[in-house]
């Protein structure tokens, strides 16, 4: 964890809604693993904040890491970026996702958010022959996924949160990661757990992980804005997350 600077080296439009930025970052960030993120704010040439609006840093999850110092992020197309633009970065923030040793089939669910926070795991898992299914739910259905590797099976859930061959996908999955948007995380996770419980009477530990991407004011465990209640303990999204075993998370 430190504060470093980065600039935009290249901008690639990937679909109607999104662009990817190639950021030239400090070497300390090129070993980030899936699950880890950066807290980012625009700065000017003198390393000052350009404005106080937006005020807090934005949470950017890398979707790809290229070479030793190029990190790719996916951002909404409506925001205007420019090659050469400077950023201050605090990171890496958070803990890497934990995968089973003998992982064969993984189910990723993006619910009311783009799947960006899940994408960094894709290249290494594909390299290990893991088959990946990505289900887009709620507002995530608007996400256009043609630019993702074709080995990733992308499915759209319907309004009842079911999808074609759901029973099979759930049955086959060795591990599930559910990424939810901001707002009513507890409610979104409840929806998913209900779905799961209809399949598995007893959900094992380290099987379904909930991934949260709330704004993180400080990112270092100081402000306590990101506390989550887990069974028996309070955990911080910024230092203990972003993924939590959904069987332990208290969905109050």
């Amino acid at each position, binding site marked *: *964890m430190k*504060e470093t*600077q980065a600039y935009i080296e290249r901008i690639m439009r990937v679909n109607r809604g999104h662009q990817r930025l190639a950021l030239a970052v400090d070497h300390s960030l090129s070993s980030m693993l899936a699950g880890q993120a950066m807290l980012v704010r625009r700065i000017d040439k003198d390393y000052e904040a350009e404005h*106080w609006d937006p005020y*807090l840093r934005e949470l950017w999850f890398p979707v790809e890491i290229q070479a030793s110092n190029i990190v790719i992020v996916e951002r909404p197309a409506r925001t205007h970026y420019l090659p050469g633009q400077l950023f201050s970065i605090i990171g890496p923030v958070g803990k890497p996702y934990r995968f089973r040793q003998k992982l064969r089939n993984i189910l990723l669910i993006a619910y009311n958010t783009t799947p960006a926070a899940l994408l960094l795991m894709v290249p290494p898992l594909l390299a290990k022959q893991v088959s990946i299914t990505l289900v887009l739910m709620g507002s995530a259905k608007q996400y256009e996924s043609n630019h993702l590797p074709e080995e990733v099976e992308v499915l759209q859930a319907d309004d009842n949160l079911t999808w074609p061959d759901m029973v099979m996908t759930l049955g086959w999955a060795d591990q599930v990661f559910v990424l939810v948007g901001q707002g009513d995380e507890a409610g979104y996770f409840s929806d998913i757990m209900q779905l799961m419980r209809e399949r598995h009477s007893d959900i094992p530990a380290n099987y379904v992980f909930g991934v949260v991407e709330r704004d993180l004011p400080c990112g270092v465990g100081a402000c306590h*804005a990101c506390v989550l209640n887990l069974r028996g303990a309070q955990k911080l999204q910024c230092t203990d997350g972003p993924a939590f075993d959904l069987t332990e998370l208290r969905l109050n």
Partner: protein
Amino acid sequence: MAIDIVRSRKYSLTVSTPVMPASGTVGFGDRYRDLLDFEKLGAFVTNAATIEPWRPARGTRIIPLDAGVLVHTGLPNPGLAKVIKQYRRAWANMPIPVILHLLGTSARQLKRALPLIDEAQEIAAVELGISDDSDAADAVSLVAAASQMEKPLLARLPFYECQQLALPLADAGADALVLTAAPRGTARDPHSGRLVSGRVYGPLIKPMILRMVGRLRRQLPEELPIIASGGIHSPQDARDYLEAGAVAVQVDTATWAQPKMLERIARDLGGWVATRQKDALPDEWNPEMTHTEVIQRRAT
């Protein structure tokens, strides 16, 4: 530089630079150790501890505003006794005085807590948080109770009530006043659509509290120090408060947005001046870097 930030009743509290973080922004312990050089600060102010444990707020806790943010954490903490036990080691290792922020609820509860605080040598002073909507009588009895402690007592006043409470709390035994806690407000959570009430932070708060500090400096007893807090986002913001009569300042959420700003303000007000090599790239030099070479230390 050696600045006494409390009035000399029984105790003194000396800082080497008149800049510290505001309670709630840097945690209980050394969470910011990788991003801040504590040695450059005047003091460390902890997050709010309460006598009994408090749970985190439900629902949304952070609402982005234009050039600002609304925050409602619920001030989660395991209660005073556990806070002391858990963090006293980190406090002992701090190179600067540690000020414990204690949220005042009832005078009776508070009295029972004082021995815990007096016993903890790692705590240099207490900043007592006075609740919003407190009436003067309750606030006075809290401060009077807390002032029985064997350490200096700072009282942090709520924003809307600060004009009414300042003089009574000065009389009740506060050794310094912190002006003020962030104002309460209500904003709509863009994700859930619900209204959330919390505290409002941002640079626009500064002109309001600067005015209060200027006015109250003229009304309060001369020997009672004022520590200013609210909307500080630059060294000039901090200097404006000193010029209005504050002895020291607290930097709040600017630290989240740009952590090194706190250190930079502290360097600036502490008389540390750094110069920059001409045409250096930001990567090679930046005024926020912890280990920027100090070129000159002004005479104090």
